[in-house]
């Protein structure tokens, strides 16, 4: 198991290098210009100077290697310094955003809490709702509960978040005035009152996303449970006189979790990707909003760094899903 993990980790390095090159080339060949959003009153000569000051005059391989060095060496050293108070990275050029002219790493660190709170919370909540719904729906297939669960899943799955989000805002923020329609990213929780405010401002974005996540996961859970409930070992367990509770929650659930765990694990990187639309609707300025504004502004260092971090997370969580497989199912061991 250990050597398997190690081997996979080492193999991930060339994979990631390849991905980073592809991302870089794609962004570089895509049409667009970081000065395109500037007002037309700024003359083209000035725009040319701005592009030059952003380093766009250098040949492509130099820009790629420079970015790679900044991302792989300077940024980790700076992060290390920030945590341990050392100064190994002093004087090294970091990845700098074209929009803000400030290090990309700092902005990402600043955005991370919002995204983890809102998107992460909705994922946890969605999963917690989805698992029991999936189990009960499968156990009582075609009951009214199952029908209702199916209906809610279909709604959550098929109605886009930009619709549910705005709908919630119109009902609960505009008409009823219960929740704020704009998320305050600077809010700090210090006591019960401020905690209550934090909860109030998170209710709408979290429920929109949780509905979507729960819809997806509960369908997987239900399907997987149904597969297992008909298996021979279930009949054996019942024949041995085990209680329904043990049969369903120990024997069937554990086996059914194998594919579901993969789905859940592979969904974790998307949390870090933020929920672009939901963040935009509720003005939760997290990583998703950061990515979309960077794309609009043709802020290549920012887009590149963010997408590459997502790539790392996806590779990592693929590995975690594989390892979890081995833990859940003793038959699958990789040695």
């Amino acid at each position, binding site marked *: 198991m250990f050597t398997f993990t190690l081997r996979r980790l080492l193999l991930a390095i060339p994979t990631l290098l390849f991905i980073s090159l592809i991302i870089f080339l794609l962004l570089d060949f895509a*049409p*667009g*210009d970081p*000065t*395109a*959003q*500037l*007002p*037309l*009153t*700024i*003359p*083209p*000569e*000035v*725009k*040319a*100077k*701005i*592009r*030059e*000051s*952003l380093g766009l005059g250098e040949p492509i391989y130099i820009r790629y290697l420079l970015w790679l060095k900044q991302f792989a060496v300077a940024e980790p050293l700076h992060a290390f310094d920030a945590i341990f108070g050392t100064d190994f990275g002093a004087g090294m050029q970091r990845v*700098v*955003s074209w*929009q*803000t*002219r*400030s*290090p990309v790493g*700092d*902005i990402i660190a*600043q*955005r991370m809490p919002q995204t983890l709170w809102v998107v992460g919370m909705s994922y946890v909540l969605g999963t917690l709702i989805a698992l029991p719904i999936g189990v009960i729906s499968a156990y009582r297939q075609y009951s009214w509960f199952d029908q209702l669960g199916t209906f809610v899943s279909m709604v959550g799955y098929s109605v886009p978040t930009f619709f549910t989000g705005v709908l919630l*805002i119109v009902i609960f*923020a*505009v008409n009823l*005035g219960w929740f*704020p*329609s*704009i998320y*305050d*990213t*600077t809010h700090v929780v210090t006591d019960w009152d401020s905690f209550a405010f934090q909860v109030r401002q998170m209710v709408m974005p979290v429920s929109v996303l949780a509905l979507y996540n729960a819809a997806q996961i509960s369908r997987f859970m239900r399907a997987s449970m149904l597969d297992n409930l008909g298996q021979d070992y279930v009949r054996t367990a019942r024949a041995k006189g085990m209680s329904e509770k043990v049969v369903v929650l120990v024997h069937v659930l554990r086996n059914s979790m194998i594919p579901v765990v993969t789905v859940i694990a592979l969904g974790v990187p998307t949390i870090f990707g933020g929920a672009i639309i939901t963040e*935009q*609707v509720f*003005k939760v*300025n997290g990583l998703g*909003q*950061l990515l979309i*504004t960077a794309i*609009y*502004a*043709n802020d290549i260092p920012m887009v590149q760094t963010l997408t590459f971090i997502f790539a790392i997370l996806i590779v990592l969580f693929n590995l975690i899903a594989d390892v979890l497989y081995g833990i859940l199912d003793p038959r699958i061991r990789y040695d």
Partner: protein
Amino acid sequence: MNFKTALLGAAAGSLMATAGLAERGSDGQVNIIYWQAPSIMNPYLSGGTKELEAASLVLEPLARYDEKGNMVPYLAESVPTVENGGVSADLQSITWKLKEGLKWSDGSALTSEDVKFSWEYCTAEGGGCAQSEKYNDVVAVEAPDELTVVVKFGVAKPFPYGPFVGAQAPIIQKAQFADCLGPKAPECTEANFAPIGTGPFVVTEFRPNDVIQLEANDNYRDPAKPAFANVVFKGGGDATAAGRSVLETGEFDYAWNLQLAPDVLANMQAAGKGKVVSSFGTLVERIMVNLTDPSAELGEERGTAKHPHPILSDKAVRQALSMAVDRELLVEIGYGDAGRPTCNVLPAPEIYKSTANDGCLVQDIEGAKKLLDEAGWVPGPDGVRVKDGKRLSLLYQTSTNAVRQDFQALIKQWWSEIGVETELKNIDASVFFGGDPGSPDTFQKFFADVEMYANNFDGTDPEAYMANWACKQAPRPETQWQGNNMPRYCSDAYDALVAEMATTGDINKRAELAKAMNDMLMQDYVIIPLVDRGRVSAHSNTLGGVVLNTWDSELWNAADWYRIK
């Protein structure tokens, strides 16, 4: 007590009355929402409007424009002119006097050295200063004493108010930015995010592309202002949500640039929490007519003056295209209160506005048909007019944008009524306006027959703007396809007017010249103006003192804002 002091007293009294019990920081917090979030607080490193306006709460110029486009002194004692001796007779130097006792928000004194430094900062090699055009032709800035600044130009400048005037060219503190010149500019993140300024507010926290928190500046020159102790400047989302947060939920006090469908805004306003305000500047949505042949067969020479356009070189066709457009309807559908029909590419300020072309306000389909008939364009079997084997068929491009696509569809319909076939094309704005010489789809290359976009100019002086249509401004391969003369208009008479304006100082004479240039372009139909687009913002009913200004930052008078109790 003489008459003058009596007047002063009365003025002071009325001020007291309107501003209530004005005291710094007495009105709590004001919430501003910009649906495009500012990325940086240094306007020299970003030309974007959102950054300029956010920075204008902190950084101030020597003088700025008021809502009518008049110049008002801010950090300067008065606005120098030739009459008061501030501008030299040869128009090559201007002398500004700073107000006495001005302080930066850190308590240190503002001196002429800071002003001089602002020029050095923006013109330093390798800095990529977005506002360097404001400092064009400046050869030296001198600081003979602490309060005097002399700007010297290399040429005669009839309008010497580029440097240090308006939100684009504010004064930054030398002590803070001294190590940030040229290529080092981006390294000064702290200074770029929280510049020390002279304005009414000071940055306490800046989160790029998210939110800015500010507090009242203790060292602001007027001890009674600003009335607000704190500002929360939130960014992000979209115009609809921003409008909703001010007009419907009342969470925010001021929302910027609500370019929304007229009925959407009216519905929001009906909730009764705030009001929509609009004001007009110089932004004109227009159709540019290509006078050169864009056909791909010409290879390297396509879109250059060597090959005149086969159809659009005929003035009758250009005129007919303009006559067929119903500008009133375009305004009603696209902009509502935020637009008005215009027949000029130079619609404001008032003294520059021509009335010679107002005939275009009325749509005249029959007249357009007649004009084309007379010019020999006869309808073919499919209704499209033909002359000498050339079909009246046009490619019409613009950027991707809901209102622009509506306009394209309407105009295509009107043009088909007069026998002109139109193919529509829309291009992503970042490519269209991107100016990448490698892309065939930029608005400068203009590989189409007509194209539509909006443009305006900074400040109130149209000299540089009108010079856009001089022959040498035509984008062509030799200029790497840069330039502002999209129609590739080339007229010796026009160029002569441009040259004359560059040496004319008298304001009335300048106005005549600018009008003459506008009329020339309009009557040659190389630019078809459509809509004079205003700025629309909204503020809450409890926010007082808002004066929407299109000539400067919208937040230009934030120091005077107060809470209506």
